[in-house]
């Protein structure tokens, strides 16, 4: 598991980027944490820099939207989903369990 940061360092509405084989974006939506691939499937952009609206993140460049819970595209121009990753909170620390590429989101 990859350590991200203490929960206190990621307040609601905020996102952070974690380096992994493929970078991962971790979001705090009103106290619930979600992790997805950080790179937009449309073009090279960091979703951690995006606009969080409920459980959706909008890509900061071309406005593609992804559902943080499923990784599915909820707004064009992206067509391919991002992978979701499991988030674990233990002793006030956030960790992510990176999915391998072969387990890509459906």
């Amino acid at each position: 598991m990859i350590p991200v940061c203490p929960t206190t360092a990621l307040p609601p509405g905020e996102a952070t980027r974690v380096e992994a084989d493929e970078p991962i974006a971790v979001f705090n939506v009103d106290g619930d944490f979600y992790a997805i691939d950080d790179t937009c499937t449309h073009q090279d952009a960091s979703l951690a820099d995006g606009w969080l609206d409920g459980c959706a993140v909008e890509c900061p460049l071309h406005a593609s939207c992804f559902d943080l819970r499923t990784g599915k595209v909820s707004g064009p121009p992206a067509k391919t989903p991002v992978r979701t990753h499991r988030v674990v909170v233990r002793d006030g620390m956030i960790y992510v369990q990176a999915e391998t590429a072969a387990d890509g989101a459906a």
Partner: protein
Amino acid sequence: MSPTVAVVGASLAGLSAARALRDQSYDGHIVVIGDEVHAPYDRPPLSKDFLAGTASLDDIALGAPDDEDLGLEWRLRTTAVGLDHVSRSVLLDDGSEIRADGVVLATGARARRLRGSEGLDGVHVLRSLDDAISLREDLAAAERLVVIGAGFIGAEVASTARKLGLEVTVVETQPIPLAGPLGAEMGAVCAELHADHGTRLLTATGVAGLVGVGRVEAVELTDGTHLPADVVVVGIGATPNIDWLAHSGVALGNGVLTDARGATNIPGVVAVGDCAAAWSASAERHVRIEHWTNALEQPATAAATLLGTGGPAPTPVPYFWSDQYGARIQFAGTRREGDIAQVVEGSCADRSFLVVYERDGVPAAVLGMNQPRLFTRWRRQLRSAVPTTS
């Protein structure tokens, strides 16, 4: 017969309207009419990755696998030639007509052409996929490109052509490019990208005409200079596709005139995207917006209007972007003369900055170059600061 909505126009606005109708539980028949051969595709890459050959047709298709579930009837390669507002029928170029309970006008805009350029090979506009394919083929065999117009399309084509190794000159009649949307100061800063990357920019320069027989050979400037050119791209704006509505009874101006919720003067007929000039309470006039995000977002409101479920009119914050020479330019809000532009982060010299435009001490617009994270925060702040009007 089940109720029918006819969506006239099969690009982003039309597809978004069809999706919005289903999202809002409309279960009647939906016919989407498009005059191109192609299924809906994304236009922004046409001047960038698609033109450069690094994005394929598949990459830029807008259709998603879930769209199968929308149950749409597609009438592509079909041009709407008229609208009978009494029977609410869309008349098609094959002589048939589609009788509908609701009509969404989403016919977009077409590129303005240079007078005297008809029938001359090597002269292009860039609006459609076929335009981009034809330009891409021509650029592959060319050495010298002249771009007429230093707006966003012109700048992006220049940038792509430089990447492809062409010698590029951009000719602009205004003293400063993009001064309209960005203001003179920031327009000048963005225009410096051309020189950074070896593109020659001629401002305050008029075009007298094109030189060549059968194929373009040069662009003649008003001072008599000839700029040799293998290919010329004309990027001087767009005209809304509304001619076909001339005798329909639909009120027209610089676009199809609608209220803030997309309703035209004809009941059951709404208009969205580049062809629509919607009433703006803040500007106190009809405003036609050619931005991608407008074509994406406006249809949800218009669909609700058509279904009679419309809430308060939204007050969107206009947003557009431009990718040129590897720089990401983003703009949100509305700039007016007299707004004061201030760099709040980074520096223009570093080509990485955020500029806020203030009006009466309040942020009215924001411009970012290579600052997506900070830009997004400001854009959100602008959006939350705009009150909803009913």
